[in-house]
């Protein structure tokens, strides 16, 4: 497979995520869409990692491995983010009984 397929695939997933953020009002769904974006990035990173590995394996058997490690860290961060994010959403829900982001418009102008 050529790398461009992966690029297109990742970007498509990424943009679906963005579109989700734009079109939904449920904070949880929006958050999920963001997770989708992160996964698209992960996919891309892994694909690039593979590509660089193939390019540089002759000189360095571990070529391209940092891409995968990066993905690992993204997952770590995402997990932390999810815990905090969901805590915030729950707190919000406790106060307003809604997860509708359009409901959040006390702060404006």
């Amino acid at each position: 497979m050529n790398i461009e397929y992966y690029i297109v695939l990742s970007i498509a997933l990424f943009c679906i995520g963005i579109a989700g953020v734009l079109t939904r009002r449920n904070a949880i769904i929006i958050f999920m869409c963001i997770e989708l974006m992160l996964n698209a990035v992960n996919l891309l990173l892994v694909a690039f990692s593979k590509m660089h590995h193939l390019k540089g394996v002759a000189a360095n058997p571990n070529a391209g491995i940092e891409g995968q490690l990066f993905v690992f860290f993204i997952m770590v961060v995402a997990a932390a983010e999810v815990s905090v994010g969901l805590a915030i959403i729950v707190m919000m829900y406790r106060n307003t009984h809604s997860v509708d982001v359009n409901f959040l418009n006390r702060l404006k102008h």
Partner: protein
Amino acid sequence: MSISEILFYFLSVMALGSALMVIISRNPVHSVLWLIVTFFAISGHYIMMNAQFLGIVNLIVYAGAIMVLFLFVIMLMNLNAETEPKKNKWLRMAGIVAGGCLLLVLVAALKDAEVRTSAVQLVDGDIGLIKQLGSVLFTDYVVPFEISSVLFLSAMVGAVVIGKKGD
């Protein structure tokens, strides 16, 4: 078309389709489920690219832990299709158009990327194995590894602060 290409297309269609379903589904629970499907598809890709460890972790952490957490929260809040807020039609259109445009622009921008012709050979190599990853992680990348613990600590403290009752 080799088996790997067929697999690639299958997984890609599956990922894209289920991703679309995530944002289309009215019911939040369905969205979560579709997202899990997407993650599976992505994990499939990982495995195809010899990133076995990541593929497994993806399944365990994302599809497993994180998505369950989501599901749990949604269940807790008793969200369903009826309670799902609907966006203004125009804004929704605008969102879709903007997302689509971004896709077009990005693809157009990258269509003649410098790495276009680089092949990604499937099912070959062993950097994705836990052994390789682990050794690099604990040597070259030990600093970020330790630092991410700070991240987790802060997330933990944060969750406690937010979740703590009574003030």
